[in-house]
């Protein structure tokens, strides 16, 4: 067992995966992962080309093009840096290149803000990237290894974000057990079907085309890959559990959900606080459970429906926000509501927004459950969206 920060844990996974090309550009809080990798490579712990890029746009283009040749690649960013790379991020998925990137979630500018928010990563829900969401450093390491396995699978061939909550995971050191030699064989070498290499003959990739020839068909192919990734993800985690002895449910992690009347739904690092709150409330006789999404794409809509159909009220712990959105909640909230629209018994779903990077505490999560409980007892919510950490009036 080691004591590692989240960024260090992910760097260890990149080393274990024997990544070939890494592209770095600094922005807090993701930067630490590149600091670690640069030092590892300088010390000869493993060999890779590490490019110090001139921007996030270049960073993601470098990874994309190295991947096209057949290299295993790693990249990452945070906050507005990720958005600066958005163009390159788009084409990486649409060219079906299995780049793996760390998204170290951070509030978007302006003003500059080092707090944690999900908007930087959730923006990419519509881009064709798989998005997995770790809750601690150990899972971030394991998730990175599984990300390469899933993304490089011929049935998938899509890039993937391993999202970790900024500061709370990237910068906090916690016990991590790296996998030992049992991992060997888990990650076969990456062999692209059509490498951009004269040795394999000429291919023309991503040329300009008329929409009348290939337009919606190509989009459908990418969509089908995202959907196919579901079975590959399940297989990969099963195999990982067998080899390493650490098992994870593939899509949803739950606590106290068997007879739950109220549920807290969230992702990421604050799941642990939510479980703590649920435990305390259980001791007080409240039937509260916790559901955590481990993947944002592919979205586990079916699993969520099955799990939450009988629940009466849901408190969403949401670190995303969409200004002026329907019901004024974030993408996280609205997708959950959309997923449960087809449920036979629809629970009340309330959004608790932790936006602007201000850190919440268990007090806020407890309040969230209490507000949800009152809404259920009344049979209707007073309002749908709350800003628990806001100072002053919530108007």
């Amino acid at each position, binding site marked *: 067992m080691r004591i590692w920060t989240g960024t260090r844990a992910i760097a260890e996974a990149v080393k274990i995966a*024997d990544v*070939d*090309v890494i*592209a770095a550009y600094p922005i807090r809080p993701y930067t630490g992962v590149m600091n670690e990798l640069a030092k590892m490579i300088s010390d000869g712990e493993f*060999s*890779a*080309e590490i*490019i110090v*890029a*001139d*921007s996030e*746009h*270049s*960073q993601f*283009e*470098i*990874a*994309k*093009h*190295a*991947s*096209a*040749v*057949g*290299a295993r*690649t790693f990249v990452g960013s945070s906050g507005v840096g990720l958005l600066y790379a958005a*163009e*390159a991020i788009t*084409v990486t998925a649409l*060219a079906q290149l299995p780049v793996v990137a760390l998204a170290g979630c951070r509030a978007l500018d302006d003003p500059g803000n080092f707090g944690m928010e999900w908007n930087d990563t959730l923006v990419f829900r519509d881009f064709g990237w798989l998005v997995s969401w770790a809750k601690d450093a150990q899972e971030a390491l394991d998730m990175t290894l599984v990300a390469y396995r899933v993304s490089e699978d011929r049935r998938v061939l899509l890039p993937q974000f391993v999202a970790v909550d900024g500061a709370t995971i990237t910068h906090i050191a916690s016990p991590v057990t790296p996998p030992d030699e049992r991992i060997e064989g888990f990650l076969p*070498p990456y062999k692209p079907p059509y490498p*951009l*290499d*004269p*040795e*394999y*003959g*000429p*291919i*023309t*990739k*991503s*040329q*300009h*085309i*008329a929409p009348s*020839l*290939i337009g919606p068909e190509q989009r459908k192919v990418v969509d089908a890959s995202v959907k196919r990734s579901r079975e590959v993800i399940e297989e990969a985690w099963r195999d990982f559990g067998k080899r390493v002895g650490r098992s994870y449910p593939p899509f949803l992690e739950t606590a106290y959900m068997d007879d739950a009347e109220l549920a807290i739904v969230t992702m990421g690092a604050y799941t642990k606080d939510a479980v703590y709150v649920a435990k305390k409330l259980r001791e007080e006789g409240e039937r509260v459970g916790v559901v955590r999404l481990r993947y944002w794409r592919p979205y586990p809509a079916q699993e969520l429906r099955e799990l939450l159909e009988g629940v009466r009220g849901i408190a969403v712990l949401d670190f995303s926000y969409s200004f002026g959105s329907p019901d004024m909640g974030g993408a996280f909230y609205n997708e959950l509501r959309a997923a449960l629209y087809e449920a036979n018994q629809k629970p009340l779903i309330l959004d608790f927004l932790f936006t602007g990077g201000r850190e919440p505490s268990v007090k806020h999560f407890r309040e969230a459950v209490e507000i949800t409980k009152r809404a259920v007892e009344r049979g209707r919510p007073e309002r749908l969206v709350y800003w628990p950490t806001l100072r002053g009036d919530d108007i």
Partner: protein
Amino acid sequence: MSLQPIRNPKELGPIDYYTSGHRTCAGCGPAIGYRLATKAAGPKTVLLGPTGCMYVANGHQFLTSPYAVPWFHTQLGGGGAAGIGTAAAFRALTSKGKRKREEVNVLVYGGDGGFADIGYAGLSMAMTYDYQRLLYILYDNESYANTGIQASSTTPWGATTTFTPTGRVRRIGNERMKKNVALTIAAHPGVRYVATSALYPPMDFVNKVRKAFNSGGPAFIQVLTPCPKGWFFDPKHTVTLSRLAVETGAWALWEYEEGAFSLTYKPPKRRGLAEYMRLQGRFTHLSDEDIERLDRMIEEQWGLWLESDRQKRLILSWTPPPTPL
């Protein structure tokens, strides 16, 4: 494996790596450049193309491809990074024993929009690395030619484009001076090879491409390629205009090899600029006085080019921007 200089065009052989299957305009200068450069680079080449007219025109209609070597698109601002990523992948895979040892040329072929404007920072980044057999060619047709001829930072003073039209108040069209990208690339310490070229004389371009790949570091060539659509001339004049650009001195052919500057063509007697400009519709609104003034600017610039050639080192000029009469 170094690429030998070509003395006779026949030595290039009959095989084209940029061939049929494109739909560029009649008289397309960039297409001629593509053909020459890929022929010079040979089959062990990966070709990368930032968005531009040569992206839009080289595919699209019937899912055909003119590329007989591996080709991949890169975003308009991604050319510099794409070359680095591709070269890094080859170096990593060969050094780690995941790919056989064999040299591959990486040729990133972008327009002035891609390399003088949006992708300039990435190009500059590339010039600070040490990847070998990595060549960036800027085909300079002096505008964004696939979007309806908009000005770029290499559009010359006085040219009309849809973003710099002449009008009742603005008589001149483009009032910015053409950015000399090749000179700025030569300012990168340690850069091995930088050159300018044109479609005439063709072997000058071919041999510069081969020299660039042999140079031992990332290299850069800016090749002037007339564009019938953007410069408004009869398609039969593409090579004539390349020749006139060189012989009037409007475009100087030079190379910068490990710090040593030399002109690769010195006009014995410089032809008057009017001959070059009056063939092009984008300059028709300019007065004879305007052109004479530009001619005098070129004369002064050539003093410096010749002195640089004599001293074998670059002397930068400061040119006052011409103001309309």
